[in-house]
């Protein structure tokens, strides 16, 4: 095999992987989203079979339609779920940035021998199951939970706060769960920053707080972008946190999808929701990818 052919084969492997485990499943989902729900196994029509032959396939292809998308767009429930997801993701990401930035900044400024331990501390929660950690928040937030017990005990409140099963609980869960995804990319950029730049700024008459806005913040922008997208994208499609902490009031699209698929057994509508979610998130994902690529190029 020539070197060129070898190189092509090597490049081909990830593409094959993508085709097999992303493109093919996506095509199946996309096709399903154009089908109609039916009481059958699988629960939709048409089902293409090898025995149909070209003529059969053509006939069945004519049964496919965009009706499910019409249903979703026309139904306030779905639209609201999409909007709520985007809103919760945006608010959650904003809170994460405000909490995560000072943490990352402090970590990057800590003495060098402390830094690995601090990074360890940020990653530590991953050692326990995500599900268990979210469950733990129910114990903290429920009316007779730890938080209310504490506040009641301290006499700060008279009646228990209703936090569980609200959007606030979802935000708390989201912020708690995604904090490492915000802190780590921020820490990576801040830690890499040349400290003498701040000295130079001060030397030129810039007080430290101003040096933060003029030097540190703009130079950490790649970390901010990375952290925000790493949080925003998965939060939008989050299922477990709204299901466990949000109760029935909080409608997020991930949960809606779950309900359509498993409770209503309406696979075509669920598929259409999944396709729409992907379409909505493709924009931010592409912005994120471009930013990462540009950073790689600029990385000297």
């Amino acid at each position: 095999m020539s070197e060129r052919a070898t190189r092509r084969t090597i490049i081909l492997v990830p593409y094959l992987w993508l085709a097999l485990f992303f493109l093919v499943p996506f095509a199946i989902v996309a096709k399903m989203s154009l089908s109609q729900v039916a009481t059958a196994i699988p629960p939709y029509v048409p089902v293409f079979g090898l025995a149909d032959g070209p003529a059969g396939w053509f006939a069945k292809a004519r049964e496919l339609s965009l009706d499910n998308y019409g249903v979703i767009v026309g139904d306030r429930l779905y639209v609201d779920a999409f909007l709520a997801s985007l809103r919760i993701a945006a608010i959650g990401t904003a809170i994460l940035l405000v909490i995560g930035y000072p943490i990352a900044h402090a970590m990057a400024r800590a003495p060098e021998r402390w830094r690995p331990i601090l990074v360890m501390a940020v990653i530590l929660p991953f050692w326990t199951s995500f599900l268990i950690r979210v469950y733990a928040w129910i114990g903290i937030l429920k009316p007779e939970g730890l938080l209310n017990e504490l506040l009641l005990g301290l006499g700060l409140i008279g009646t228990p706060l209703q936090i569980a099963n609200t959007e606030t609980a979802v935000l708390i869960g989201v912020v708690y769960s995604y904090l490492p995804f915000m802190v780590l990319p921020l820490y990576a950029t801040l830690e890499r920053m040349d400290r003498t730049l701040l000295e130079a700024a001060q030397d030129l008459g810039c007080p430290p707080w101003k040096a933060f806005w003029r030097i540190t913040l703009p130079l950490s922008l790649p970390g901010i972008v990375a952290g925000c997208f790493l949080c925003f994208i998965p939060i939008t499609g989050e299922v477990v946190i709204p299901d466990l902490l949000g109760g029935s009031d909080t409608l997020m699209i991930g949960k809606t999808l779950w309900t359509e698929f498993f409770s209503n057994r309406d696979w075509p509508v669920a598929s259409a929701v999944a396709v729409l979610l992907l379409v909505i998130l493709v924009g931010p994902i592409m912005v994120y990818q471009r930013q990462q690529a540009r950073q790689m190029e600029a990385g000297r």
Partner: protein
Amino acid sequence: MEPPERPARGAFAPWDEPAAQPLVVFDGVTKRFGAETAVSDLTLAVYEREFFALLGPSGCGKSTLMRMLAGFETPSAGRVLLAGQDLAGLPPHVRPVNMMFQSYALFPHMSVEKNIAFGLEMDGRPRDEVGARVAEALRMVKLEGLAGRRPHQLSGGQRQRVALARALVKRPKLLLLDEPLGALDRKLREETQFELMALQERLGLTFIIVTHDQDEAMTMATRIAVMDKGRLAQVGTPPVIYEAPATRHVAGFIGEINLVEGTVSGCDGRRVTVATAVGDLTVADAVDSVAVGQMVAVAWRPEKTRIVRGGEAISNGRAVISGTVHDIGYLGGRTTYHVDVSGLRLKAAVANAARSIERPLGTGEAVKLAVAPDALLLLVR
């Protein structure tokens, strides 16, 4: 001994005038980092319009001294004064001092123009003034066409000039330069040395430069402070440092030198005779007073040595040392001979004044080295 004058700087010697007020004073300054002492009880005065060099090997405390002046380090003891004002408690951003960093520390997210304008903007200067002064600074460092570039789009030499312009644009009373030419290649470094000198003289500013490069210090400085382990080994004009080094360390650090240990055998006023492994050497004008029997060193510069064939006669009054040529370094402008004399290797440098392709002396040849008594130095410390 009177310090020989630098022709270029003429009569500029405020350090010799008792009435002159120094611009910068380090008064008994000590700086400790944990158990380590970086600067030890150091006292030093630098005068206005000086081009002052802090010279020493890495870790000698020269950078710490500069960082205390800029405000990035606080002295553990002693005072640092600028124009008579104690700088204690003044944070870096209010000190009328600017620094050019060794790494240049250019802001990577700002254009050349924005980098230079930064200090003026911080002072709240009006927009027109900032624009005019930035343009002037760009002209000064010959970077007019590159105002819109980002630092990573510039060459090393261009970055160096941006850093210089950024540090100079505020017209500080005092400019600190931390190894400003360290990252440049040799040819560019030499050119830049003369540019810096011209600039300093034209603007009438005071420069303090930190360097480990003795040639750089010798070329540019009005005075040099040679530092060793947190202390000042000697402060003086480049000719004083070179021709009258105070200690073995200074003598060895600046330029090449022959150094022979010995015992004082005779003492007649400033005329001191020392018994050494290469014979008796008589120093004509010893600065330090010594006693017979004291351990001292006699030193002399290779270029102040005459070298002749073993058989040739040498005029009277010179110390004569016989040896054999070990090897010869031909450098074009001069030739360096390494001569073995009773277990020591001495150096002699001869200027190649005449145009000749033949070598006058060969390896292994018996030679005589001759040094005039007034070229010999007596080093006690």
